[in-house]
């Protein structure tokens, strides 16, 4: 039983990460009806950016409590720019093209980032710097909850709450929902659809960056191909939650991972 509880707990932590990635898929699908297959690579770039910012924070001897926030914010800012550039230069020129062309372009961007990443960062895995020292928050009856798991869950939930507030309450968030509903009608009320699409990519990429850093905390091995499997799984989670549906992606991510871990966690299978 304790194994089961532990696996569900692990699953929830990992699931939070998948949910963060899945949100990017689902938001972009909502406004563009595009599966952005490069999204897993944005997550990878988030982890990479976190690696460099975290190392800088270590070298600059920033106090420990500041390192994680600085690393998170640095990676999120880097991926905001990356997301903007991907949309602007890869997808926007194809706005009138058929959907298959855009899909193939997404796969192209994904490959570009995987291989470009190996070229620039090297193919060897890097050890993610320690920006949070490990401790156990709970350790009873064979069930362990680490502070890292707690930070992952809390950060993910906070980001999702912020996203929800943004989408439901702000002018831009409402415009985003309007664009997802009907682009032509959105234009007719004065919404610049291109700006909203840009914004969607930026927000999705920021969430993926956070996921990259959070994974770096608990699984401190980052490399340019690390985005492939989580990208696929988060895509599955997004579909599971009903692609285009933001709360669905949040739940889908957790359900997918928690279910997998609860079912398979104690079997001798080493799935990533």
């Amino acid at each position, binding site marked *: 039983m304790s194994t089961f509880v532990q696996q569900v707990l692990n699953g929830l932590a990992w699931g939070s990460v998948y949910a963060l990635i899945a949100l990017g898929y689902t938001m972009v699908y909502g406004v563009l009806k595009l599966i952005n297959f490069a999204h897993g690579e944005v997550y990878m770039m988030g982890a990479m950016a976190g690696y460099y910012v975290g190392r800088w924070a270590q070298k600059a001897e920033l106090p420990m409590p500041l390192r994680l926030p600085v690393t998170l914010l640095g990676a999120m800012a880097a991926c905001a720019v990356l997301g903007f550039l991907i949309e602007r230069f890869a997808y926007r020129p194809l706005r009138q093209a058929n959907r298959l062309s855009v899909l193939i372009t997404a796969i192209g961007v994904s490959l570009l980032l995987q291989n470009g990443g190996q070229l620039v960062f090297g193919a060897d895995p890097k050890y993610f710097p320690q920006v949070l020292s490990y401790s156990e928050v709970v350790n009873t009856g064979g069930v362990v909850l680490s502070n890292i798991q707690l930070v992952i869950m809390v950060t993910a939930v906070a980001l999702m709450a912020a996203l929800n507030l943004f989408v439901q309450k702000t002018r831009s968030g*409402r415009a985003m929902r309007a664009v997802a509903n009907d682009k*032509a*009608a*959105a*234009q*007719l*009320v*004065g919404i610049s659809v291109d700006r909203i699409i840009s914004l969607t990519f930026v927000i999705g990429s920021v969430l993926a960056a956070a996921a990259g850093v959070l994974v770096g905390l608990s699984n401190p091995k980052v490399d340019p191909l690390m985005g492939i499997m989580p990208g696929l799984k988060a895509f599955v989670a997004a579909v599971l939650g009903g692609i285009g549906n933001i709360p669905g992606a949040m739940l889908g991510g957790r359900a997918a991972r928690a279910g997998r871990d609860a079912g398979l966690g104690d079997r001798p299978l080493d799935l990533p």
Partner: protein
Amino acid sequence: MEAAPILRLENVRVSYGAVRALCGVSVEVREGEIVTLLGSNGAGKSSLLRAISGLVPLLEGRIVLRRDGQDVDLRGVPAHQIVRHGIAHVPEGRRVFASLSVLENLEMGAFLRRDGAGIRADLDDVFTLFPRLAERRSQRAETLSGGEQQMLAIGRALMSRPRILLMDEPSLGIAPLLVKTIFDTIREINVERRMTIVVVEQNARVALGVAHRGYVLEVGEIALAGSAADLAGNDEVRKAYLGG
């Protein structure tokens, strides 16, 4: 005395790929009048409105808006900036934001406005005009009936405080009783707010009932133009659009 035209289309040509939708159409709309565009399916009525709104590009011709004593050429103005020029478009098939609430849909209509008090006053206005929308303000738009969605689409357009209202087939797919309500409202908006209205309609009888003037389009060209009374009395119009 005739009012000066507030909107002029001069020799407008529009195509969708190789399909020509408008082949050199000139239309004038004067301040404060209701102009109706009649014609059968595919005659180019909707394309004309879409051209004004910047949803389709012009191949040729000009669309000129008279604003503050000056001519503004709308050709090439992107669709999302047209509403800034005081033109609101109620698209064919309503196109309300399905997953947004009635209230949110109306607020989206005022997307570019920053005058909170004015927006609230206009919201009240729309709710007075369409009490049904007030009853359903927190419902998602997709749960409304066709007629209610049409009211919402009109209300959304009014929320931008337009000078010119473009309406595409407001009677399409709506219960006959509601068609009368909608057209009564069109007349009311025109008379009480002195709103200039361009309405595309297949239902020529109701459209000529409220309009001052009309144009009949046939395969992308103007076949007939005149006052609503003249058009309603015209033999060809009677035969083709009024059922004899």
